[in-house]
């Protein structure tokens, strides 16, 4: 997983590789200074040489400058490769998401994808940078300090080694169990925040049912539970620092005792100098600090593992719709044929959503589709532009299996106005040109006229240049639907599919739109899903869907005569146009 993420370093690979080297250089400089200092004491002070002291000065300054350069180099390369990794990861994910089919998108929720692209990438960038800063430096510091100690006095260095081994066993043993607790806590913590979120958005329900006290006690219980879990996890961490201190202090005391013996020596033979003792005391700190840093790296990598996993999930998701090797680039006409089609969103599903659909629709026909909640109306039309692949059977558009078309060619010819439709921030004209990037303003105007959107657009102060806010929040529901229809019309499709796209448009306008379709684009096959009988009754033929199957297919009169479901729906909506919608 880590390897997969690091693969996206791309052109910053060498920067990322060089950065720890710089860090190592900086660490080395830091390590040399105690040596100089020890020698200063031994040769300069005890040796009484002022020249030596002066010489040490220039050497020490040089080292400091070298250290600074290394440090700056490390900061530069670290920042560049960290930001670069984040950029590449974001781009890789975003590009990959563009290849997703509808079922891939369904698999990840929208908010899930957004989090992965934003928070998770930032998490990884942060830990990666920390890693570059410490991963080599900390062990490097430790090793250099260790080597130096062995060089100065193997006996004392041995004490460090033993302390180091004991401590690392303790720390990593502790970390292992603690991480498990923390993971558990964070999961619960997320759940708690989710429940807050729920309360914020459903506050009206809470208040309407006077459930404030109920929610509060539920929350308090969860919060108390989290408190206990946090305490349990943190208890393990809390002893780390004191234990570290204890180790440092023990080492210092041991060195003092042994060091004193060595300096004073037996029979006048000194095996250690005072300066070396001072250097050793400094290294003691360095070694144990290095260990602490390594344990922190360990924690960080574990923490960002969740983010890594979520990102790799997106990158590994294979689009289940692929273009054929030799795609057809021409759609002959707008005829549609369902040849014993069955479809399930999930391949392991017990019961398919669509069962053995067998239909033939002629080019230029207008088809109404009606049926209850969950009768799979949307699923039916989504197969036509190959937003999903059929599970069984074949679906032919213009006489050719949709799987043989180039997907882009097919979708340009089959325009779908989705049930959950969105507009994007930008001018109205820009939104309309989604259908056809090079559409002239005249083409756009015509499409708006057909969708009865021209009337309100022209009333806006800036007309077609009016800016639409994100999600189309500054136009009403009915206006938004009409703009979406116009956007689909700009593409000049051979097949136009409206999936409950006029539910917020008042009945009169709805009728005018259908009228315009009939007169202006008679050769376009039109499929209209609607709740209202009035929206479909004037269609050439009407499909009645029931529980994933076609219950009836015929003209309004035929269905009234021999389809019970249709008759029932019709009767429940008696009255010419039985809706109170927003007019305008």
């Amino acid at each position, binding site marked *: 997983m880590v390897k997969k993420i690091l693969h996206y370093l791309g052109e910053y690979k060498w920067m990322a590789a060089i950065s720890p080297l710089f860090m190592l250089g900086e660490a080395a400089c830091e390590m040399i200074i105690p040596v100089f200092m020890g020698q*200063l004491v031994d040769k*300069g*002070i005890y040796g009484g040489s*002022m*020249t030596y*002291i002066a010489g040490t000065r220039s050497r*020490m*300054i040089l080292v*400091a400058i070298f*250290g*600074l350069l290394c440090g700056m180099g490390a900061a530069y390369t670290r920042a560049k490769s960290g*930001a670069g990794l984040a950029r590449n990861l*974001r*781009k890789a994910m975003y590009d990959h*998401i563009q290849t*997703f089919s509808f079922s891939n*998108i369904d698999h990840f*929720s929208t908010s899930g994808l957004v989090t992965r692209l*934003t928070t998770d990438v930032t998490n990884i960038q942060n830990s990666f940078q920390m890693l570059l*800063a410490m991963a080599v430096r900390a062990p490097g510091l430790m090793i250099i300090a260790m080597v130096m100690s062995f060089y100065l006095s193997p006996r004392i260095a041995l004490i460090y080694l033993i302390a180091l081994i004991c401590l690392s066993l303790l720390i990593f043993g502790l970390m292992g169990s603690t991480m498990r607790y923390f993971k558990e806590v964070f999961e619960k913590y997320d759940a708690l*925040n*989710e*429940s*807050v*979120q*729920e309360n*914020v*958005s*459903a506050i009206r*329900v809470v*208040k*309407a*049912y006077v459930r404030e006290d109920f929610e509060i006690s539920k*929350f308090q219980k969860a919060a*108390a539970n989290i*408190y206990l879990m946090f*305490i349990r996890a943190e*208890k393990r961490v809390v*002893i780390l*620092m004191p234990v570290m*201190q204890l180790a440092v202090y023990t080492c210092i005391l041991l060195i003092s*005792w042994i060091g*004193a*013996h060595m*300096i004073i020596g037996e029979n006048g033979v*000194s095996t250690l100098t005072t300066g070396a003792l001072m250097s050793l005391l400094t290294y003691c700190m360095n070694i144990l600090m290095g260990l602490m840093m390594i344990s922190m790296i360990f924690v960080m990598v574990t923490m960002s593992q969740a983010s890594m996993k979520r990102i790799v999930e997106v990158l590994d998701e294979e689009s289940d719709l692929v273009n054929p090797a030799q795609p057809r680039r021409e759609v002959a006409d707008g005829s549609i044929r369902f040849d014993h089609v069955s479809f399930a969103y999930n391949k392991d599903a017990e019961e398919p959503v669509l069962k053995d659909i067998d239909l033939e629709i002629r080019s230029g026909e207008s088809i109404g589709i009606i049926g*209850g*909640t969950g*009768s799979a109306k949307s699923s039916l039309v989504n197969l036509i532009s190959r*937003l999903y692949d059929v599970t069984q059977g074949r679906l032919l558009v213009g006489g050719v299996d949709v799987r043989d078309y180039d997907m882009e060619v097919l979708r340009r010819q089959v325009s779908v106005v*989705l049930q959950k439709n969105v507009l*994007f921030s930008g001018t109205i004209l820009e939104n309309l040109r989604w259908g056809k990037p090079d559409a002239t303003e005249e083409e756009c105007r015509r499409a708006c006229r057909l969708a009865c959107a021209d009337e309100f657009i022209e009333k806006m102060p800036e007309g077609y240049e009016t800016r639409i806010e994100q999600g189309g929040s500054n136009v009403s529901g009915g206006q938004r639907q009409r703009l979406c229809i116009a956007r689909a019309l700009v593409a000049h499709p051979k097949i136009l599919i409206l999936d409950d796209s006029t539910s*917020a448009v*008042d009945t*009169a306008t709805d*009728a005018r739109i259908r009228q315009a379709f009939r007169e202006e684009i008679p050769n376009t096959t039109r499929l209209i899903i609607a709740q209202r009988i009035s929206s479909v009754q004037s269609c050439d033929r009407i499909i009645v869907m029931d529980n994933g199957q076609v219950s009836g297919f015929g003209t309004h009169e035929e269905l009234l005569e021999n389809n019970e479901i249709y008759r029932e729906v019709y009767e429940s909506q008696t009255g010419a*146009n*039985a809706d*109170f*919608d927003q007019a305008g």
Partner: protein
Amino acid sequence: MRGMPRPKIENPGKLLARLMGLLFRSYGLQMLLVGVCIVVSVLASVQGTLFTRTLIDGYITPMMEQPTPDYGPLLGAIGRVAIFYLIGVSAAFLQSLTMMYVSQGMLKTLRGELFEHMERLPIRYFDTHAHGDIMSIYTNDIDTLRQMISQSIPQLLNSAITIVSVFISMIALSIPLTVTTILMVVVMLLASAAATKASGKNFVAQQKNLGAINGYIEEMITGQKVVKVFCHEKESVEGFDALNEALFESAFKAQAFSGLLGPINSQLGNVSYVICALFGGALALTTGSGMTAGGATAFFLALVTLFGSLTVGSLASFLTFNKNFSMPINQVSMQFNSIIMALAGADRIFKLLDEEPEEDEGYVVLVNAKTVDGQLTESETRTGRWAWKHYHKADDTTTYQALEGDITFHGVDFGYTDDKMVLHDIVMHAQPGQKIALVGSTGAGKTTITNLINRFYDIQDGKIRYDNINVNKIRKGDLRRSLGMVLQDTHLFTGTVKENIRYGKLDATDDEVIAAAKLAGADGFIRRLPHGYDTELHGDGANLSQGQRQLLAIARAAIADPPALILDEATSSIDTRTEKIVQDGMDQLMKGRTTFVIAHRLSTVRNSDCIIVMEQGRIIEQGTHDELLAMKKRYYQLYTGCQPEAV
């Protein structure tokens, strides 16, 4: 968080005082203990550093001169220091343990208080605050506050005490070296300030670009299906690339500049160390074995004669102090930023806590009622009948009045803000048991009217009476309990289907739950769910269709068995056939109870006792279906889709 731009806070001092007040009021003793522990552990560590001097000057150097060194006194000295260390370590342990309980405890209390307060805030608060912002208080702000309490505060205390004690020790060891160290620290602080400023600018740019790309991602991913339908992938990627590149540039610069801070400080620290070592070395030399060098070192010699001498042991201790002095100062400057951030978070937390909760001056309460000797009185058990219990202060009597569901509006004006009225002079009368339908365009004020009945909002002018009692006199909880509501936006909670239905009546039995589901026509689809009534719902019932969610919401209202009911587009996503089934069940439930219905489907409103047509916050027509049709005005137009003949 180094180099992050500091958010502006109006009164940081007052805020900090309030926060500390909160901390010390609940955890005064613990904080005192923490303070003592910090002092003890810092002193122990200073003591240890000073021991290096004692070791060299007091034992090693003199013992080197002894022909038969006696290690006894040294062992004693080490033993003494060991005891100091042990005390220090125990103090440090005690400190972090206490701090853990304090910070987690404080967070638990704060979280609880926040939530409790939030639940009591008026709906208006949720209208005027973005939900994302409210959420961020619970997540980000609480988290930064935790860091501040558990890390920044102890570290600051620690740093402060360390700085003071190290400073005193340094002065005791050598005044000239102390002056040198302080000078270097000043240089260090100036350098960090400069680097922070440079990176701060870039951090602002980074935040801006991050915001821009997040917005773009959110918009495009939300519309990803539309992108696919229009084959707009390439354009979508192009837009993304531009933003991604800008973010990369600013992120890189911000990180690079703030990354410089570390090496600059540590090398300046090294320089400081070197200077002290050299200077100290020169000083020590005069105390050492005499002078052998000359010439170039005249400057040092002059200084030495000026400031006096230094022992090797003192130098060793001093050099450790030198490191120990610049470290906490660096830490303080780092902690400073995170404290400012935490204060900004605390500011938002306190702002929420300072919001005025929903006022409830009502005193009329809803009780179960029974008739004893022709007299209406209170009943302990659920009788299916309700009464308003009205306590009259003036003559200390209590009267009971049967709940009828008679709701009247007298000249009601209302606006969400005082300067913009959305309802004007609403006059209407819902008689007990009537079904009242509200129709009209989006934004005409239909939902607003229902939100006034249950006092989600308070009116500016006029009166609303419930069974002839001014709704302001009724305790809000009881008023709302008497009105079942099925709202336009269905919201479900995480939990099982059963728990969601039971939300309407917490002590409902399983049989009651199933009966309510059947009444709402939801039983069928629930049984088809993987685990039936025990199916877990997540994310507002994301695994259900809109229609199914509405059916559950209706079941939830049905189980509450309320005396009056408000249905706000409750069946808009349910197909007409299913709606008919639901309607039959509802009609049965609502028999004899006042019902308000908002709908745009004719079948839903046709058989109402009274249909109220609204436009732009005013009632323009009122009457039965037939009466209104006969008027041939707005209702007629809405109904037939034709232009009205008259007017």
